């Protein structure tokens, strides 16, 4: 029992930094800048409207949603069929190709974003959401391939065989039989793609500067050496993180699998 109590104490301590930022977003400037930390205060609701309406940060939420949604759709559309092939077919060079997908997921953004920036400038794509959508698709496609391969492999092959006996082609089997069976996995993968794209900073930061800014890109600009308006920045941070935490809890069951590239099933 003592052990359980200690663990719970540790966990509360562990969450304090995040709770502090949520609290700060409801504090007045006076409470935030006070010398001693203020734990009990009269909450103010002025920070959120000020930053999102008066300072026009609302479009950033919209941009983040556009970028995350479209890169998720694109990644699923390209990645799921490939995952099925990896799960069901044998062909020469298969594992090498699979490794290639892994390297695209692991590639350091800083090395890819430089040439991407040069290329997109030439194509006139910078500061448009499409630039970030494509950039995020590079890492999400391979996440889909790795995660979905495992979900397809979990479906017994007998089901394919039965479907083909019933007159489905292989393509038909994939679309009409396996895809519906893998739907829960597909949903979890989609949510994870969405989260990773929503949270991503470096690609978005380099590729869009003004109109196309996402929420994460909007954060550092608000932090200045002198006179950061912490109430407002923390409001942005809370809006950027709370929906994601909610999504996380939805897919908690599949999260370990997703974050270890299908190697460990949670």
């Amino acid at each position, binding site marked *: 029992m003592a052990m359980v109590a200690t663990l719970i104490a540790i966990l509360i301590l562990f969450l304090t930094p995040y709770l502090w930022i949520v609290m700060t977003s409801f504090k007045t400037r006076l409470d935030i800048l006070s010398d001693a930390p203020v734990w009990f205060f009269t909450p103010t609701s002025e920070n959120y409207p000020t930053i999102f309406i008066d300072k026009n940060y609302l479009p950033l939420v919209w941009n983040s949603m556009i970028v995350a949604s479209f890169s998720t759709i694109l990644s699923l559309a390209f990645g799921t069929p490939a995952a099925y092939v990896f799960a069901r077919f044998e062909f020469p060079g298969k594992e090498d190709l699979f490794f290639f997908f892994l390297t695209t997921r692991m590639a350091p953004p800083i090395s890819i974003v*430089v040439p991407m920036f040069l290329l997109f400038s030439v194509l006139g794509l910078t500061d448009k959401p499409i630039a970030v959508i494509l950039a995020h698709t590079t890492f999400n496609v391979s996440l889909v391939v790795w995660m979905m391969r495992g979900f397809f492999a979990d479906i017994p092959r007998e089901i394919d065989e039965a479907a083909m006996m019933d007159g489905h082609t292989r393509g038909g089997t994939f679309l009409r039989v396996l895809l519906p069976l893998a739907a829960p996995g597909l949903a979890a993968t989609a949510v994870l793609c969405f989260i990773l794209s929503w*949270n991503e900073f470096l690609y978005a930061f380099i590729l869009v500067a003004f109109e196309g800014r996402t929420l994460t890109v909007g954060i550092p600009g608000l932090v200045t050496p002198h006179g950061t308006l912490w109430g407002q920045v923390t409001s942005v941070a809370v809006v950027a993180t709370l929906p994601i935490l909610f999504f996380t809890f939805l897919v908690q069951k599949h999260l370990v699998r997703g974050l270890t590239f299908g190697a460990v099933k949670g």
Partner: protein
Amino acid sequence: MRTNRIIERVLDHGVAPLLLVPSVVLLFVILLGPFLFMVWTGFTDLHYALPNRDGAFVGFDNFRRLMQDDPIFWHSFWLTMKFVFGVVLVEFAFGLGLALLIFHYIKNHRFILTILLVPMMLAPIAVGLIWKLLLSGDFGMFTYYLRAIGLADLQTSILGNPSLVMPAIMLIDVWQWTPFVTLVILAGLLSLPKEPFEAAIMDGARPLQIFKDVTLPLLRPIIALVLLLRGIDAFKEFDKVFILTGGGPGISTEMLSIYTYRINFRDWDLGYGAVCAFMVYLVVLIMCSVFYKAVYWNEGRSKMAGKAAA
């Protein structure tokens, strides 16, 4: 009628390439294209801020500069290495300990896991922001309590002190990512077969002995996996440092990603920047192939997945 037959045959026999090729082409175009472009840029003198530097071929000049004339790059390199080894070791030790505690003492761990997930699922830029506020020299909550217990004197702000700032960033990374290690190891512990443990208990082995001789060897693949994944991720660290210190004070937190960013997007020295970016890529690629060999190649993917299945 005939076209129908052809479509049917394609859907039956040609389906593998049909489904696989689009994703490969997509990645080649949006990833390998820019990558090759970067390699090419590394052989030129492209510079956006200086006149007459419009991308003439200069051979291996940039590589020579990197190897011989750039102490800051190597400072960043070793700083990054220390960061990677430091955080991975600490996160592993804490993560393993916490996973064992939860495994042995908590029956229903769903609630605890939910809480543990929070820091690792926050946008890294938000994590940086949180700690920037907490560690602020004037009104930071953490700074206040550190001073109250006498651990920091009144003058210093932790993020402005060259000898404290790097350990602070490492601790922040530990806060953010220890739960990941815990989650993965816990999933591994839950998936271990019961028989070896029962046999060891029958033989009268003590708990510590069981842990050393049964648990650890069985967990080895999972441990390798989690160490490598964290290592690769830590090597790429950018977001938190960018918002916390931007590489400062001076260059005391200028890790490789930050340095490469500065060369490319502050100095606009794109030819040389491409070489720096290439080096970062190379290190990650090496770590990545070790990861792949360690976790998938030897074990055989399906066997591994089957063993880890809960």
